[in-house]
């Protein structure tokens, strides 16, 4: 098997199963098919590690995106397992109808297709289009419950997402304009690998402008501070599996695209250096989100703001640049995906058991639902950056590499981390301990496997990261400069 065939498979499997799921009326069968398709995608995605990369005018596989394709496939698979146990309950209490579920399952796979396409695209136009498809798919899913809040959230997401995507397209057009005098007219001016080869000849002024638009456009999708307004609503009001996918995957995909363009601008040499811009936006997001964490009353919103915080840390790390900071950024992206989706899985079950997402109404979980309560605590410890979890390792690397180069920035970074740490522990403590109150609660039928899998991977990365993974990340970090 070649890598090209594998990429075709990871695009064809989700697309084909999306079509099949749209036709299947029985939701039990379709949730199983959903899991099977995600598993097949995961197997093929893992095979990419052993195959040499390639590039065609439309598709590209190199060491950089292999990591993300595999991570994406893994989280998509565990999410499908979680979703199978989650939706049964939603159907029982009548929040969703079988018709909704048919739509939901088809959209899950369609979203996986769009994200895989965005990750493997070599053509900057295709990259843009596939992220746009992914966005529109998630908009439809955020509005799935059709409550007032859900519609408002989806509307906000739709409007802000569309504006972001429009600005990104303008940036893409500007990149083409910058490349045209060198690359000539036609398709070559949009193929990323070809652009990289001759980037130093492009007009720097046009590239500057292009990067500003790309940063604003794709930055909206990443959820960076001044452009984040859609993110908490979209996370809080949609079905929880979608919150997990949004936080764990879609933000990463958008950031991946920003990094691709960062490489292009860096390769030019005469254009603005994207680093300081990224670092500033990252730090701003971190500080803003850290303070906002204190005022959350909705548990999913709380963790949505924590996603903004972590995206800020990651963007800051890549903005600082250099092998160590890039390595830390990549590791943190992976750790954040795994931890945050595990937290959302747990929170999804908690919200089902308690019948509410209000933090004030969730008390004494360790007593009434020991498994969920302790898992939540563990997840919060991990995401807040306590050792020995993997998030601690990556945050430590970000901080120490920053200290070596600019201590003032490192102080701000540490301050933000501590503020966020305090908020998360404060809220988690309130939810996990105390008197559960209220009457007897239904037994949770939580699917434990996905949560255990994610958290043990995070723990493993914190204690002794496997050498091949470290070597791979180091190699990619060097690629990112």
């Amino acid at each position, binding site marked *: 098997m070649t890598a090209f065939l594998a990429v075709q498979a990871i695009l064809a499997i989700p697309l084909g199963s999306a079509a099949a799921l749209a036709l299947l009326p029985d939701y039990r069968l379709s949730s199983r098919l959903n899991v099977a398709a995600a598993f097949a995608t995961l197997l093929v995605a893992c095979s990419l590690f052993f195959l040499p990369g390639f590039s065609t005018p439309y598709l590209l596989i190199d060491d950089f995106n292999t990591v993300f394709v595999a991570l994406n496939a893994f989280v998509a698979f565990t999410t499908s397992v979680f979703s199978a146990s989650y939706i049964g309950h939603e159907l029982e209490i009548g929040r969703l109808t079988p018709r909704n579920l048919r739509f939901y399952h088809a959209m899950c796979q369609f979203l996986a297709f769009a994200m895989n396409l965005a990750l493997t695209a070599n053509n900057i*136009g295709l990259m843009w289009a596939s992220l746009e498809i992914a966005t*529109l798919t998630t908009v439809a899913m955020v509005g799935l419950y059709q409550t*007032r809040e859900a519609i408002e959230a989806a509307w906000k997401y739709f409007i802000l997402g569309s*504006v972001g995507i429009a600005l990104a397209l303008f940036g893409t057009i500007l990149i083409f304009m910058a490349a045209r005098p060198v690359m000539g007219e036609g398709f070559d*001016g949009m193929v990323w690998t070809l652009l990289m080869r001759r980037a130093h000849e492009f007009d720097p002024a046009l590239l500057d402008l292009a990067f500003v638009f790309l940063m604003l456009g794709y930055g909206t999708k990443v959820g960076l501070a001044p452009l984040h307004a859609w993110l908490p609503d979209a996370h809080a009001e949609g079905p929880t599996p979608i919150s997990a996918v949004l936080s764990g995957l879609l933000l990463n995909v958008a950031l991946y695209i920003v990094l691709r363009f960062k490489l292009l601008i860096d390769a030019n040499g005469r254009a603005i250096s994207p680093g300081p811009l990224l670092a500033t936006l990252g730090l701003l997001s971190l500080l803003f989100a850290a303070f906002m964490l204190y005022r959350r009353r909705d548990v999913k919103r709380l963790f949505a703001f924590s996603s903004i915080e972590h995206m800020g840390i990651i963007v800051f790390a890549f903005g600082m640049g250099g092998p160590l900071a890039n390595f830390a950024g990549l590791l943190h992206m992976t750790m954040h995906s795994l931890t945050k989706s595990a937290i959302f899985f747990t929170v999804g079950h908690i919200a089902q058991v308690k019948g509410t997402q209000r933090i004030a109404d969730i008390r004494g979980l360790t007593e009434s639902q020991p498994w969920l309560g302790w898992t939540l605590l563990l997840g919060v410890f991990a995401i807040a950056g306590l050792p020995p979890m993997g998030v601690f390792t990556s945050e430590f690397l970000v901080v120490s590499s920053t200290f070596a180069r600019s201590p003032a920035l490192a102080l701000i970074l540490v301050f933000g981390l501590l503020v966020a740490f305090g908020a998360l522990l404060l809220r988690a403590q309130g939810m996990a301990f105390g008197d559960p109150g209220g009457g007897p609660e239904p037994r949770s039928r939580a699917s434990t496997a996905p949560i255990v899998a994610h958290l043990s991977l995070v723990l493993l990365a914190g204690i002794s990261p496997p050498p091949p993974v470290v070597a791979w990340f180091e190699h990619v970090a060097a690629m990112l400069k």
Partner: protein
Amino acid sequence: MSGLAFDVSHLLAGGLVLISFMLLYQTRLYALLNVYAAQAVVLSLAVGWQAYVQDKPHLYATAAIAFLFKAALIPYALHRAIDRLGVRREVENVVGVGATMLAGLACVALAIVVMLRIESDADPLAREDLAFALSVILLGLLMMVVRRNAVSMVIGFMSLENGLILAAAGAKGMPLVVEFAVAFSVVVALVVIWVFLFRLRDRFGAVDAAVLEEFQGSRR
């Protein structure tokens, strides 16, 4: 490039910017839709002219799509939606008309300052076309900010997309991929918008983003 080709391109692109300004001060929904349709007609003329000047037949297709979808189908559909939903026909601005127009002027000035400073070997036509396109994009953004009515926000977004198509058509030799992507996105966006309009009606009996503000999630 001959002087005439140059002048006509400028005339049409400038017309788009002018119509963007007209969109800013409309106070009735139907009038807003008509002005939007007019902008789409000018857009298709501008793209058609680019097709002729650059001798790129595929741009004619883009022009045709702009004309059919944006000038005819979407205004018609929204017209019907407004009729059937019984939405209030007047739209109020959050900001006064005078202030909005001043902000619009500032947007255009910004676009010109940013684009004309670029001294590349790209031909001046492409550069100036891009300045017009950026103006239309910024004015579309401005419109989305100053309107609170859901339909006029959608129109603001679509006029923003008109600016994008103008930019893509002006970028000489840009492959068809993007035009198709834009057309496709418009269709998908339309579907989503339809869904929203109907769901909004079901839930609130009106299509007004002001109603939505009661549920502002950020306070929770």
